[in-house]
């Protein structure tokens, strides 16, 4: 901590909040509001004379409210910066007439109630979000009696009770009588791993098992006559040295009991706690008495994370923690270029994991910062002003927030932030967005060239650069033979495939059109291929309406490693192709020339998680399920992705 405070290249701003972030990768501008400390950080010698005269006594938040502090205080002895601070909420009045005792007591005259908020504007190239986590508040779990029973504490409160610099000055005591507890119980999974939203979160909080085991070992080391029981569902001790520590505590007699307490009662006189629990390994009910009960509370996203998330347009995972750009390959990057994540803002983490991830994030940021400038591959989007109706649909679908748009304004592409997926161009109904190097004209020319001769023998195939095209390459590398009728048009992302391309291919006589891209988890453009599905849904709707067999439009996901899957897809496509007669092709051409290109199917918020019906266009399987835009659709019968979300009937 001190290293941070004295590093010549770190400007530390405490008591400060982020007010605004604008700009883009390499060129962000941030505004920071530094709130007044009312104490000159550089002059304060932490003598403590001010504290002695301050008449205001309030709970000390650092000690989890287990002891008190004054209105002028130092958060903890090793605080950085090492200086006192006046809590504006607690102080009797910064008007010296009201109190001002501290001012008089300060020999160095470093207390100044005239300090005001300072707005600081900075230019930065990269941002690391390390907003951390909060802990779950277990008050809602009534059976544990937290807040009703004084000797039921959270794991963080226990930390402050046991700490050498803690609330009781280094002597372990329980809250009710400050006496040393001889029987301590730990309850695991408090607020974690539950499907009931009123009782916490579905995820495992990662740190609580080891934290309780650590507490047990600490008790063994310092208070060896303490009886420790840990109530658990599963013990998750999977890290380096973790299992060893678990075994050490077992060897020292810590009791691990599988089963979570069903009820906790307090003895009104002794304030001891009676725990009723089903021991699930021995299949019997037990009642145990404890002097103190520690709730191993889970982690929840920090409130500030959501605030920062919205400011720099990041995505969140289902639990509310920040979502990485790619779980496997880019775990500290975010969808917004130049913004990285470190620590528990991304998921619950212990100190070691947080440090590791922080080093990774700084390394990623360093790659960017060490350059004076970087080149953007010339595959980005360009807006044509004339056909643009300023509707802003492009900005809505951009996974990177790379399109700046305001009502009635021409959208502006931020090239530095654009990754070139092309889903904006595919969304535009007016042909107002062009992709450099992957232009509409080039794609139409490819479709025409494929179908120029013997069109009934050609399968027009769109393959994304990263997965499907690479999957076809893998099939080649592995010499997996397949029928020779498919011709690939490479796009950066399947999200580039405009419904008009598919329509045009059918108009030009394609018997079968295949659109292929990355599996949902692999999408190299965050979630651009979700838009592909919306568009294909719309196309299927229309084909059915017009009496054209929807199975002639295939949708399949294929990863770069799935050469075998590509071979199968090719064989399937060939089967489809053979089923299409030249009469059918002619009929389709005639039909399609009459109607307009269908628009993408846009789910409404109400559709999310609602009951829905799905139809597999490969094997005709029909089934009921729930609609979720983030779930990759796959036929339970044949594993095809040509799964049509049937329009809900109202």
């Amino acid at each position: 901590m001190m290293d941070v405070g004295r590093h010549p290249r770190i400007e530390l701003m405490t008591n400060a909040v982020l007010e605004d972030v604008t700009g883009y990768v390499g060129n962000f501008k941030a505004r920071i509001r530094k709130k007044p400390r009312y104490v000159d950080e550089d002059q304060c010698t932490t003598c403590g004379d001010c504290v002695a005269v301050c008449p205001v006594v309030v709970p000390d938040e650092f000690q989890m409210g287990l002891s008190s502090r004054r209105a002028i205080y130092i958060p903890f002895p090793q605080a950085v910066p090492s200086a006192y601070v006046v809590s504006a909420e607690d102080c009797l009045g910064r008007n010296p007439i009201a109190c001002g005792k501290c001012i008089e007591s300060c020999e160095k005259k470093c207390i100044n109630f005239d300090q005001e908020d300072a707005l600081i504007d900075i230019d930065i190239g990269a941002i690391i979000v390390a907003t951390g986590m909060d802990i779950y508040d277990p008050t809602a779990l009534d059976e544990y009696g937290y807040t009703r029973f004084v000797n039921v504490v959270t794991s963080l409160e226990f930390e402050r009770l046991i700490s050498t610099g803690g609330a009781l000055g280094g002597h372990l005591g329980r809250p009710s009588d400050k006496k040393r507890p001889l029987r301590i119980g730990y309850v695991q999974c408090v607020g974690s791993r539950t499907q009931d939203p009123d009782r916490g979160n579905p995820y495992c909080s990662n740190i609580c098992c080891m934290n309780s085991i650590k507490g047990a070992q600490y008790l063994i080391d310092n208070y060896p006559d303490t009886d420790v029981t840990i109530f658990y569902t599963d013990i998750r001790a999977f890290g380096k040295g973790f299992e060893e520590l678990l075994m050490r505590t077992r060897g020292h007699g810590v009791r691990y009991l599988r089963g979570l307490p069903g009820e906790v009662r307090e003895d009104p006189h002794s304030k001891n706690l009676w725990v009723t629990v089903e021991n699930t390994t021995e299949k019997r009910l037990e009642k145990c008495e404890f002097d103190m009960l520690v709730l191993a509370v889970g982690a929840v996203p920090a409130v500030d994370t959501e605030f920062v998330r919205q400011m720099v347009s990041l995505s969140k995972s289902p639990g509310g923690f920040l979502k990485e750009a790619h779980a496997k390959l880019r775990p500290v990057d975010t969808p917004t270029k130049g913004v990285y994540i470190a620590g528990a803002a991304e998921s619950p983490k212990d100190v070691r994991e947080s440090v590791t991830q922080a080093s990774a994030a700084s390394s990623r940021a360093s790659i960017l910062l060490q350059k004076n400038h970087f080149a953007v591959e010339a595959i980005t989007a360009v807006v044509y002003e004339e056909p643009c109706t300023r509707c802003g649909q492009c900005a809505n679908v951009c996974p990177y927030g790379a399109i700046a748009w305001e009502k009635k304004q021409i959208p502006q592409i931020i090239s530095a932030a654009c990754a070139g997926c092309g889903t904006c161009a595919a969304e535009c109904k007016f042909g107002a967005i062009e992709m450099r190097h992957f232009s509409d004209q080039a794609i139409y020319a490819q479709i025409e060239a494929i179908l120029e001769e013997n069109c009934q023998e050609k399968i027009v195939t769109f393959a994304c650069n990263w997965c499907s095209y690479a999957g076809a390459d893998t099939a080649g590398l592995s010499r997996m033979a397949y029928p020779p009728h498919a011709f690939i048009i490479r796009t950066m992302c399947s999200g580039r495939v405009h419904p008009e391309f598919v329509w045009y291919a059918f108009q030009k006589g394609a018997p079968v059109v295949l659109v292929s891209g990355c599996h949902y988890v692999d999408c190299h453009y965050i979630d651009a291929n979700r838009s592909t599905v919306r568009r294909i849904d719309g196309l299927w709707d229309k084909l059915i309406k017009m009496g054209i067999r929807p199975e002639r439009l295939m949708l399949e996901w294929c990863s770069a490693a799935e050469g075998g899957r590509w071979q199968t897809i090719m064989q399937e496509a060939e089967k489809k192709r053979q089923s299409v007669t030249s009469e059918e092709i002619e009929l389709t051409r005639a039909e399609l020339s009459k109607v307009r290109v269908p628009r993408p199917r846009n789910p409404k918020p109400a559709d999310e998680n609602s009951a829905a019906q799905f139809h597999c266009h490969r094997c005709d399987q029909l089934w009921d399920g729930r609609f979720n835009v983030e779930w990759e659709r796959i036929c339970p019968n044949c594993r095809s992705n040509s799964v049509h979300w049937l329009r809900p009937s109202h």
Partner: protein
Amino acid sequence: MTKEELRIGVFVCDCGSNIAGVVDVDEVQRFAERLPDVVVAVRNKYTCSDPGQQEIQQTIFDHKLNRVVVASCSPASYEPIFRQCIQAAGLNPYLLEMANIREHCSWVTPDREAATPKALDIVRVAVARAKWLYPQDEEHIPVTDAALVIGGGVAGMQAALDLADAGHPVYLVEKKPSIGGIMAQLDKVYPDIECSI
């Protein structure tokens, strides 16, 4: 849109026997030569080799080519190399198109009778696309050498220190009056029961 006359050169690669063993490469070369706007088609044993690349560059000069189609392998393997190659000959690197007649044709189509027509069509499609390629300039974005770290817990502190030690100026913003976060509230940390601060 450019008004200049299209002058496309097609370079058909044997890739040893990888392509030529299955595809009638001579036929591909003759077919390419007859396509509209193609002014020259050349067959190489290994287009990616130094002599192969030199031949591309020489042909660009000799025939004043303004689009280049390389009919060989996947762009995943050699597009960067051929882009550099034509750039060295004075062409914008975005004027290159690759026709993948190896991974997507010769390696997956053992039947020679089927492989050659497929290769012809793949080349036809690549030439059609090449006509719609334009020179593109890569935008150069300046980078401000400074980072903002939001949050002064253990992750934020470590990130700030690493970046600062690497020589970058860092702004570390913390809402509370002291850095340290939850870590500072812990007495010991697992698995070695060491001090947290």
